[in-house]
């Protein structure tokens, strides 16, 4: 049986034409925003999460206390609350605008701040479980040749810990990619923001849902596959 589109070429136009009606943002533009949010928040949370993990294993009780408190508070607050706090709290009440002059840029930067603060707690915990997989003797040998605490962590323990937790970190990154949809709540024009607009204006809600679901799978599936392959390749042999 010939497909509907073959017998009625205009059907394709009727079903899909609404997509081209959106130019603020466009479909691709919206997903590009999702990618940018994920990228910058990913880098930020990797750096901040690593610092938090270093604090949690540090010999200084104050740092350990801070790391533990941070992780336990931040990971238990809903992300929506954190993102709204960044916009309504930081920007509107405390006038933290991250050097942005217009509202859009400000929202974008505050969203990255919020995602970084939130995701770092999960990166920290993944990394800490990785640190636990590194045998005690590795750190002892490092200290025995005269490396200090920071060098031991940076040169010996963390490189091995990272390789052990590439898989769990991929989970965190995938979760982050999907979590960026929360930024729609503060008006950042990413995928979920556009989806909401389309659903309000169009009839094909099922199709719209499918398009955005597909878009996210396109973003996250390769992430998982590539990092899975990398984790096998970089595994430390003992």
């Amino acid at each position: 049986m010939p497909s509907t589109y073959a017998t009625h070429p205009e059907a394709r136009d009727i079903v899909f034409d609404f997509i081209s009606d959106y130019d603020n943002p466009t479909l691709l533009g919206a997903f590009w925003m999702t990618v940018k949010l994920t990228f910058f928040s990913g880098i930020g949370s990797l750096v901040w999460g690593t610092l938090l993990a270093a604090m949690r294993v540090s010999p200084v009780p104050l740092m350990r206390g801070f790391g533990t408190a941070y992780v336990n508070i931040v990971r238990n607050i809903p992300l929506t609350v954190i993102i709204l706090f960044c916009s309504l709290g930081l920007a509107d009440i405390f006038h933290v605008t991250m050097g942005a002059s217009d509202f859009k840029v400000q929202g974008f930067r505050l969203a990255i701040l919020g995602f970084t603060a939130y995701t770092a707690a999960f990166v920290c915990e993944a990394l800490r479980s990785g640190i636990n997989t590194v045998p005690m003797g590795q750190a002892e040998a490092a200290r025995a040749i005269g490396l200090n605490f920071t060098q031991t962590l940076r040169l010996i323990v963390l490189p091995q810990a990272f390789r052990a937790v590439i898989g769990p970190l991929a989970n965190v990154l995938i979760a982050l990619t999907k979590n960026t949809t929360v930024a729609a709540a503060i008006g950042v024009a990413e995928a979920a923001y556009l989806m909401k607009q389309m659903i309000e204006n169009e009839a094909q809600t099922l199709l719209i849902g499918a398009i955005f679901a597909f878009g996210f799978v396109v973003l996250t599936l390769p992430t998982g596959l590539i990092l899975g392959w990398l984790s096998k390749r970089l595994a430390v042999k003992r």
Partner: protein
Amino acid sequence: MTEVSVAKQDAAATGELVVLKSVNKHFGALHVLQDIDLTIARGEVVVVIGPSGSGKSTLCRTINRLETIDSGSIAIDGKPLPAEGKELARLRADVGMVFQSFNLFAHKTVLENVMLGQIKVRKADKKTAEEKARSLLDRVGVGSQADKYPAQLSGGQQQRVAIARALAMDPKVMLFDEPTSALDPEMINEVLEVMQQLARDGMTMIVVTHEMGFARSAANRVVFMADGRIVEEAVPDQFFSAPRSDRAKDFLSKILHH
């Protein structure tokens, strides 16, 4: 002129390098080191033997403060062991340590293992560090394995790399914590030979081991420990042929028959 410098070296060579005074340590209720007094002279090879749980490994590990002590004092080359921080790191660099389980850095090649301390602690440039690492690896007989990862080497080879890694820091004293206990029997000798060579070259060594053959042939002194105390100290011949304490007699009778 030459005579003067030789005389100086001799004076230094007779100095006390490691001095432990009434050292005590507890693991919870277990009094694992009890009033340990031990002095090791420059160039001396001291073998510590004793039954399991006698505290000999702990003793070895307190000397570079991988284990802290509860009371007493430890001095290395006249300087008391610093508590933490930079001073301690500097001291550890001067004290080479070889572990039972090798503990080579698993994510670095053999060559990188031997270069790391030189570059990061001694601040040597890469080229000098590599040359020295390669010559040390040749010296312990694993030069051809330089670019492999530790897991690709046999236990005996890994332990010889670990010795090279410690030697790369130009240590004043080397600590060996049961260096052959985790090895297959046929690999023990290749490690002992390297250690014997080191002893002949005049390295100050403290060796915790069950290898009585090594104690006999390479040690200047045998220290016998039991239940957290030093029970007996003697030159190897005297210790093995005529132990004074009953505890040592009992221990030797159990191990020397086979």
